[in-house]
């Protein structure tokens, strides 16, 4: 008998597999990013191109756009694996489902959330956000998108058996994501005004730690229900 693969090894193996799959379908990675930029453009078009007014709405626009484009990509977290039977095979491998779910969430964020954080200064700049504030926004989005990935993993796991679940998924995840939205937008707001944004950023961090520790357990329970 060969030696059993450890938990960490299993997690890394799964992350590597998901990254490999993501690179074979680059459009799935780019589409949410383009969506983010497009949504950001909608607001100057529908409101006003005046820099002073844009700076007022910039925090809200950036965070809502990031939220919506992250939601778009969430359905793909578990759906494909559930449909071709690989999800149940992973559960049957005997590795803890919590680790499997956490690994998939991490991979999902690396593919979706991290590029969004990297590209956020571009969107921020188009809305007249100052460089210092851009940095704060990126920091906030780093924590926010990661929190959203974990929250989303629970929603995705709960809707495994549901066809065309993207709207339901958004309906479930959005109310839970509102605290993150409040703190993140506030951080950007403070930074634009030139004040210290550490308060909201710490709150975002606390939210991230809370979600990241608890969400995988809820998601794992939901996965087990979903593959019955």
């Amino acid at each position, binding site marked *: 008998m060969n030696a059993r693969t450890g938990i960490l090894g299993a997690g890394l193996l799964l992350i590597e597999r998901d990254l490999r799959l993501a690179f074979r379908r680059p459009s799935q990675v780019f589409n949410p990013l383009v969506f983010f930029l497009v949504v950001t453009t909608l607001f100057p078009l529908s409101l006003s191109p005046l820099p002073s007014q844009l700076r007022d709405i910039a925090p809200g626009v950036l965070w809502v756009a990031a939220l919506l484009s992250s939601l778009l990509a969430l359905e793909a977290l578990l759906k*494909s694996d559930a449909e071709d039977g690989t999800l149940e095979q992973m559960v049957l491998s005997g590795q803890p489902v919590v680790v499997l779910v956490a690994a998939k969430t991490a991979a999902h964020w690396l593919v979706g959330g991290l590029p969004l954080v990297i590209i956020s200064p571009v969107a921020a700049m188009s809305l007249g956000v100052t460089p210092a504030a851009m940095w704060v926004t990126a920091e906030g989005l780093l924590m926010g998108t990661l929190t959203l990935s974990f929250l989303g993993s629970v929603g995705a796991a709960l809707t495994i058996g549901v066809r065309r679940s993207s709207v339901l998924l958004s309906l479930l995840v959005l109310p839970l994501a509102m605290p993150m939205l409040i703190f993140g937008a506030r951080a950007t707001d403070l930074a634009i005004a030139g004040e210290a944004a550490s308060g909201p950023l710490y709150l975002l961090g606390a939210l991230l730690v809370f979600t990241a520790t608890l969400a995988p357990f809820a998601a794992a329970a939901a996965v087990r229900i979903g593959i019955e």
Partner: protein
Amino acid sequence: MLTAENVHLWRGDRHVLKGVGFSLSPGELLHVSGPNGTGKTTLLRVVCGLAQPEEGIVRWRGESITALGSSFFEDIGYIAHDAGLKGDLTARENLSFAARLRCVVTAAEIEAVLAALNVAECADIPARALSAGQRRRVALGRLLLSQAALWILDEPLTNLDTAGAALVLDLIARHVGTGGLALVAAHGELATRGGRTARLELA
């Protein structure tokens, strides 16, 4: 070593499994048969531990599989209706991932299994481009590499040509012949190659 006692399962109002019981020892194959819709897949999934019965108990080596948890999973290999392969990954990548998730496997072992299953030539083709027979064989490779004692196969011969079916039956026979257990659901006949075979007919 595998026993099921009085397993009942309802799906909503439908009484799918009505007090199913059986016993399977090493070196034996149990052919679960019955028309479509009689609960063959459901029974297999209950034995896997994926579905929970309302009543009854499944035991592996004397202990309930719910109590055993993940250590039971280490002893089984399951192939569902779909082969459980990712369409965008090649056969080799699929096999490598599935095997490595369970235990440490060398590249040489993977190549050996691919060759033994006659899929070495298509090892670098994405799984969605493979035929049903080739996909089924790659899935079996997963079982071979995992060295699982109990094989649980759901309709392993559907969509296979005669050569493919023969290969699958050969592998099952070899597994059972070396002391393994096999639980196979098939609604038709199963041309087994000797060895001890029992049959469970689900009404």
